[in-house]
């Protein structure tokens, strides 16, 4: 049995009031107040023009956070395996398809259809970065961050490879919003490595636990944590922002959660 352990070499973050990892680090570390405002998704500059036109919110969110993490780690995205984890695919695209299928004109467009797959972000990611290595594409509803972290760590320790975890969620419009009220887009990306390197930020070691998940002190951040599946990873980012040598408990399934031992490098 291997300890599920890896070094974090780069972090990407984008969400409401969290413009990137440096900004998020200041907020989570308590150096700046949290000021919520709507997530601004940058245009996906890396995609060819045709794909850029067809891309949707979850593609933009994934590219922004993943490329931030990989740039911070000083790595080439084309060479990295990847793990995409999200509760659902693109919310807006799903709504438009369901609306059309309930209408008299069911002829959804080819782009709508291929953007409907859960792995839409993974597909555009490999086109944008040229990455031909393995890509795991997961969902575990509210446990999606934890499921992605476990998958990424098992890649690192078993296959002895670096990988990038991309945990991203986007909102549905009404009427699906009422059934699945994810308030805004939020993504966390982590580059994980099996060996310590000069750019390593922290070593993390993960195991299953029955303990309750850690909460965030700031009320607005805590409501993000519980409302957006990817934001279940924020307590880990807070500990890294504070450079704390500590354990955090991340939310996972109703039957089990994840203890993460964090040792800053």
């Amino acid at each position, binding site marked *: 049995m291997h300890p599920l352990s890896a070094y974090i070499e780069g972090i990407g973050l984008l969400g409401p009031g969290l413009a990137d990892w440096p900004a998020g680090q200041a907020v989570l570390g308590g150096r700046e107040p949290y000021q919520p405002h709507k997530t601004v998704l940058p245009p996906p500059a890396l995609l060819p023009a045709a794909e850029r036109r067809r891309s949707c919110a979850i593609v933009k969110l994934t590219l922004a956070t993943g490329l931030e993490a990989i740039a911070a780690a000083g790595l080439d995205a084309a060479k990295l395996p990847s793990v995409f984890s999200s509760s659902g695919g693109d919310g807006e695209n799903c709504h438009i398809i*369901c609306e059309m299928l309930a209408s008299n004109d069911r002829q*959804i467009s080819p782009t709508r259809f291929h953007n409907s797959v859960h792995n839409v972000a993974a597909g555009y990611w490999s086109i944008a970065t040229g*990455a*031909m290595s*393995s890509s795991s594409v997961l*969902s*575990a509803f509210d446990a999606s961050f934890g499921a992605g972290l476990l998958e990424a760590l*098992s890649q690192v320790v078993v296959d002895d490879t670096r990988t990038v975890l991309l945990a991203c969620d986007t909102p549905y419009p009404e009427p699906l919003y009422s*059934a699945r009220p994810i308030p805004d887009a939020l993504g966390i990306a982590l580059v994980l490595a099996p060996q310590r390197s000069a750019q390593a930020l922290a070593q993390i070691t993960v195991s299953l636990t029955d303990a309750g998940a850690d909460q965030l002190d700031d009320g607005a951040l805590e409501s993000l944590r519980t409302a957006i599946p990817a934001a279940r990873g924020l307590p880990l980012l807070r500990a890294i922002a504070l450079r704390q040598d500590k354990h955090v408990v991340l939310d996972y399934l109703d039957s*089990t959660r994840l203890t993460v031992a964090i040792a800053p490098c």
Partner: protein
Amino acid sequence: MNPLWLSHFTATSSIGRGLDQTLAAMRQRRGGLAPCAFDTVDLATFIGEVAGVDAVQLPAHLTDFNCRNNRLALLGLTQDGFAEAVRAAIAKYGAQRIGVFLGTSTSGILQTELAYRRRDPVTGALPPDFIYRTTHNTFSVADFARRYFGLTGPAVVVSSACSSSAKVFASARRMMAAGLIDAAVVGGVDSLCLTTLYGFNSLGLTSERPCRPFDAQRNGISIGEAAAFALLERTPEHLDADAVLLLGIGESSDAYHMSSPHPDGLGARMAMQDALKMAGLKPSEIDYIHLHGTATQSNDAAEAKAVRTVFGADTACSSTKGATGHTLGAAGGVGAVICALGLQHGFLPAGLNTEQLDPALGLDYLLQNRTQPVARVLSNSFGFGGTNCSLVFARAD
């Protein structure tokens, strides 16, 4: 990798419920495709519908999960003593030591498609009986399976379109090798819905006839539905000669296009080569290739190029999508079970519906069933987004 044992497996598709019916249908060259009469769909296409899905009743404590995909999942789980095997594994390993890794592409989205027809005319709200989490959400089928068995270990859905239920074997292998779990329920469930029927139609990828993989005149897929499962355990010291082992897995991405394969099958080639490498086998040691073989012009051409590059032209191969239809997120699981049956019964299934092999594809594509010893096989699953996965299975002897 250390070989993993498929201690139990089962498949339910339009050609039958469970292994006996599936094997009998293949031996009799009986397909499950019929003109589409699903729901209100008005498309000239053939589908592989599983009979009796709507009669399946979920247990009383799981009625929130009631949707076509989970009904089909339960129908599949209760064939061939599979559920009993999972319960025996729980008694052996413990409920937290068994992971759930299931593939699906569309989950229970049909439930949402139907709910959108019943929106409140004034507010636009979905009807009050609509439950998103346990039906539509991508995770729903794995959540259903873990609750059905009372499993408390890691659980996840892999949703990478038509490679989903091949890639579940990769995730399960890694988590078993990491020591987080001792066994895994793997597989895939995908069910008919309007999104895929109208979606593939919009791409011009559905045939108006039963699909004809590798035929010179092939002109598109027939969509099917299926539930396929395997229980993965570490290989014990003593195994029956006909026990089925997973020897290797290869995964890759095309980095080319969202809905067209790399024209030279580059990603497919990498997946097959990596699976062989992990298994420690030469291409010549593979007796049969279960092709992805969807019957679109470009998919079959790209796959044939990739297979020729890795194996040459002489390895027996076929696609079973002419029988089952393309079961999308369940296709990898169905392929794994068909390979396991082939290994145990010394049987290679012919591809159905194909009348005139496309000479440009240049493979030993089976148009007749073959009965012969089968020791090692490879199964391909490729999907939208350029996702590829190949699996190598072998008999224990």
